[in-house]
Structure formats: C-alpha cells, structure tokens
C-alpha cells in the first residue's frame, strides 16, 4: 500500500460551518472472489478495511469497508467545524499496514 492518498479539506471555515471532506486513495481492493486467469487459483482478499478521521486526536468519523467497496476507494463526508485544528486520516489494510495524511483548518 505504497500509495499517497488524497484528501480535500478547506483551509479556512467559519465556526459552526459544516464542511465537506473528500478522500481518495489508490488501492486494488482485491475482493478474494477473483481467480487468476492462468493458474485458476483464487487471488487472496486484500482490501483497505478501515478508514478513520480524527480531529485534534479525537475520532470524528470512521468507516468499515468490505470487498464491495470499489477499487481506489473514494469517501466524502461532513464535519462541523468549531475550532482550528488538524485532521488526521488513516487507511488500514488487511495486512495491518496503515497510511496516514494530515490536513489543517483555520477557524475565522
């Protein structure tokens, strides 16, 4: 999972404003249902099964993904901004490896 994820968070917002956060990461999301065309053997499942968003260290949004989530998973969701701080987004693979990305927001 050596991929750089993308997140879109507004740089600034007003206190009480509900913002939309978008995220995208490249990953095959191998379902475990496919067979190798040549060998005929099942390709083992390998997906990102967990996506977590924290704000100033506290979990504010998360998702459990199953193999029915498309390759290169996209997720958008909302957040009500009350104070300046930092988001951290973490994607966890079936093999336990994680990828993270941070984004700051200023409240005016």
């Amino acid at each position, binding site marked *: 999972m050596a991929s750089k994820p993308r997140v879109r968070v507004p740089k600034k917002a007003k206190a009480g404003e509900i913002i939309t956060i978008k995220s995208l990461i490249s990953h095959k999301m191998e379902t475990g249902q496919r067979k190798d065309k040549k060998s005929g053997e099942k390709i083992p499942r390998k997906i990102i099964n967990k996506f977590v968003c924290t704000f100033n260290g506290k979990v504010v*949004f998360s998702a*459990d*993904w199953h*193999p029915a*989530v*498309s390759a290169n998973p996209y*997720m958008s*969701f*909302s957040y009500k901004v009350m104070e300046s701080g930092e988001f951290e987004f973490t994607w966890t693979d079936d093999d336990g490896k994680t990828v993270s990305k941070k984004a700051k927001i200023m409240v005016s």
Partner: protein
Amino acid sequence: MMKPEISRRSALELIGGGVVTALLAGTFADVAKADAKMLAEAIKKAVGDGAMKEGKITLDLPEIAENGNTVPVGFSVESPMTEADYVKTVHLFAEKNPAADVASIHFTPASGVAKAALRIRMAGTQNVVAVAEMSDGTLYTAKKLVKVTIGGCGG
C-alpha cells in the same frame, strides 16, 4: 367444428415444458430466498434483530449503473446530530453480491449532518439497502433498486 388434436408426443412435450418451467421457477425462487436470507443475516449481524422503520434515509443512487464495478452511492439521514440525538452508523448492503455487506459508516455529533458518499461494486441488478442506527438504538431502513448493465464492449 374442428376438434383440437393433441398427439401423444405434443402432450408429452407440453407436460415436459411445464415441468421445466416449474423447476426453473423453483430455482429462481430458491435464489431469491437465499439472497433474502443472506441479507437478513448480514443485517442481524450488524444491528441485531430490532424492529426497523422506514423513512429518514435518502439514498442517492443511479437508476441504471453504467458499470457494476463503480457505482456512486450517496445518502443522508434526517437527524439533529446533537450529543443527545444523532445517527451513529449507517450500514449499506447489496443483496445479490457474493457477500451482502458493503460498508458501515460511523458518524459522531461532530459530523454536523449524517451525509456521506462512496463508490461501490454491484454484481448485477439488485436492491441497495441502508440501515441507520440512531444514538437511542432505533433503526431506520431504506432501499433502492439499481439496474446494472451487463454486456456491450469490454476490452
């Protein structure tokens, strides 16, 4: 007046056809039953077997998906999203996929609104089912049929 004549052979064919039709209908019914059972089990595993009410959930899905590999799905759930009353989780299911579970989206009062979007895989035309779990434990559900086009030019 002509009397309709049915030869022994055509009668047998008719009977045979009837049996085949009945068998096929039975098979389809079994498949549908199996899908319903898998869906019911997945929902029970996710939220228990409490009563589910219809409403509060808006599902945004295409009527016809161009490709089952990537179907955009958006949803929102009516809720004040306060500490006392918020949407905890929205579970998405697809009844005819190899496994019914698609995703479970967990909100907090900090979400502001219970709204999210993602892209999912659908193995053929089927219902997408959403179950929302509220902070007080009540359950709401909604479903939408999505036709998945198969056939045409791959490459």
